[in-house]
């Protein structure tokens, strides 16, 4: 093997690991399971992640250039949308579901509340195309990006090709989102033996393991499977969840189990954002379960928690808040590149 070949192989190996400039682009705590995302087809590079970040924050992705991904997935809310029960798109149009928080996506095998999307690369097509979200069309997005002087050099740097394609737009967006890893909550410090739970948090942790961990499994705090958690159907939406994708009666009213990480930042809760407060969520599980044929087996018998136990459980849940993640500048608006004064070229 020549030196050049050796370098090439080394470079390929490093990009497979997502290593660039010595720092891994993808944080992978030892106690996390293996990621679900296949990095072989879209190995992380610094330039692709950076392009993805610019695209994520640029409203050019929407039909009227007003709504970016970050409009409904704000970094300060762990990439969810505070104060909006349902997603808020172009021209003040309101969608039918709550914008979910975005983190640890490399470990998710399936996306959206109903699992309609099976690959992170393809996920962005859904909000881009939805008439009540961004109302655009990927072919037109590609044309707009090609015409905006900012982008061809960024695509050149990322993909060695200044010609914008749908594939590269989607891969770059996926790359940025893959780097949104939340693993610096107090829970993680305890896991690494760098901190200890307070007695109250420890009691809450025990209650959590007893009552919640089957579905909200550590360390990701979700199995990312689907479940009917006993929410009475909202007849203004008539959302049957997973059934709408699979058409199987057994999937009626099943929704993807969300992670409990960053729980203080991601309210309102549930697929339709019906609960604003954490205590409302706990009250639902202790006394609000609506029975139906597809109700989760774990909820067939009510969860019993005293008022003190609820407080303890909440104390534990707050240890899942990851401020380092929420305020990480490398995930935020790319001020240097996406200067707001830059006009949109029609």
């Amino acid at each position, binding site marked *: 093997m020549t030196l050049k070949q050796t370098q090439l192989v080394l470079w390929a190996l490093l990009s497979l690991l997502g290593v660039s400039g010595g720092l891994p682009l993808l944080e992978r705590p030892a106690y996390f399971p293996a990621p679900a995302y296949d990095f072989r*087809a879209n190995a992380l590079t610094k330039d692709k992640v950076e392009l993805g970040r610019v695209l994520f924050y640029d409203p050019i992705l929407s039909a009227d250039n007003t709504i970016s991904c970050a409009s409904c997935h704000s970094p300060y809310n762990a990439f969810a949308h505070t104060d909006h029960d349902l997603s808020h798109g172009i021209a003040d149009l309101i969608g039918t579901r709550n914008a979910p928080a975005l983190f640890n996506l490399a470990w998710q095998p399936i996306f959206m509340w109903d699992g309609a999307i099976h*690959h992170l690369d393809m996920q962005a097509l859904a909000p881009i195309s*939805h008439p009540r979200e961004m109302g655009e069309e990927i072919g037109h997005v590609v044309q707009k990006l090609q015409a905006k002087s900012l982008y061809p050099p960024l695509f050149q740097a990322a993909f060695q090709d200044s010609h914008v394609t749908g*594939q590269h737009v989607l*891969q770059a967006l*996926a790359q940025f989102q893959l780097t949104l890893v939340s693993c610096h909550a107090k829970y993680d410090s305890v896991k690494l033996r760098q901190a200890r739970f307070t007695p109250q948090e420890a009691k809450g942790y025990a209650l959590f393991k007893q009552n919640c961990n089957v579905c909200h499994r550590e360390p990701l705090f979700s199995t990312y499977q689907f479940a009917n958690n006993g929410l009475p159907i909202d007849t203004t939406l008539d959302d049957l969840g997973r059934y709408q994708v699979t058409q199987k009666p057994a999937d009626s009213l099943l929704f993807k189990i969300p992670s409990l990480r960053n729980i203080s930042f991601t309210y309102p809760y549930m697929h339709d954002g019906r609960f604003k407060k954490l205590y409302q969520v706990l009250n639902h599980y202790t006394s609000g379960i609506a029975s139906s044929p597809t109700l989760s087996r774990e909820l067939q018998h009510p969860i019993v928690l005293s008022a003190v136990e609820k407080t303890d459980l909440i104390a534990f849940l707050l240890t899942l808040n990851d401020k380092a993640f929420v305020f990480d500048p490398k995930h935020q608006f790319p001020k240097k590149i996406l200067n707001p004064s830059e006009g949109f070229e029609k």
Partner: protein
Amino acid sequence: MADVVHKEKIGQVGSVLLTHKRLLEARRRISAGTLHGQVQRLLLLLGLMSYGLVTAQTRTVHIRFAPTYAGVPLALGAHYSLSSQDSVVFETLRFYVSELQLLHDNKAVAAMAPRHRLLDVEDAATLTFSVAVDPKTPFNKIAFQLGIDSMTNSAGALAGDLDPIHGMYWAWQSGYINWKLEGRTPICPARNHVFQFHIGGYQAPYNSLQRVELAVRASDEIVIQVAIDRLVTQLDLKATYEIMRPCQKAKELAGLIQGIFTVVP
């Protein structure tokens, strides 16, 4: 073993697509019509001639898909008769042909590159392509898949004909549209009398991928007729006019579509 071969093939797709893109670019430059372009055209011609001399061992088989209505070439926007009273107009016909092979006694002797092609009636160039065959090797069958297989469907964002910009990928639910046929007929009760068939689905129980196998004579040109009249006259467009998701009806329609491909003798 088969799996390994399959993975290797996937690895090749990128380079093949790249080559295809370069060819397209070359074509674009040549068609510029300038003096520079004419010189380039001459050089390319010389290049092709010398290539022909060097590789005289290769036989090129031209394959053309010919969508027709009642025996005449299908034109978008033209009126055709659906029955003695009613007419029909087609506005879109696009479909994926994958893994096309020429076979001799069920053994593949040549394969199409790239592995997947999007055929679009609006762009006649997409309906014709060629496959290189060893001139000494006979063949008596052509086989291909109509649509995109589940592995490719699950491979993330892809390039070239598989790029979602071609409007052949569902945004709201992951998966390629294998076959898209849209048009109008007065008997169709939908708004503006429009019918829309976006046929796809790669997962059981609604997998709509179809395999087509046709006997052929070993000639240098194979024309495959796609008889759209045979499809629409089997449908009741009064009752069935919108299928745009993986479902039982889509699977049934895919079965009907499979039957409208024939080799022109």
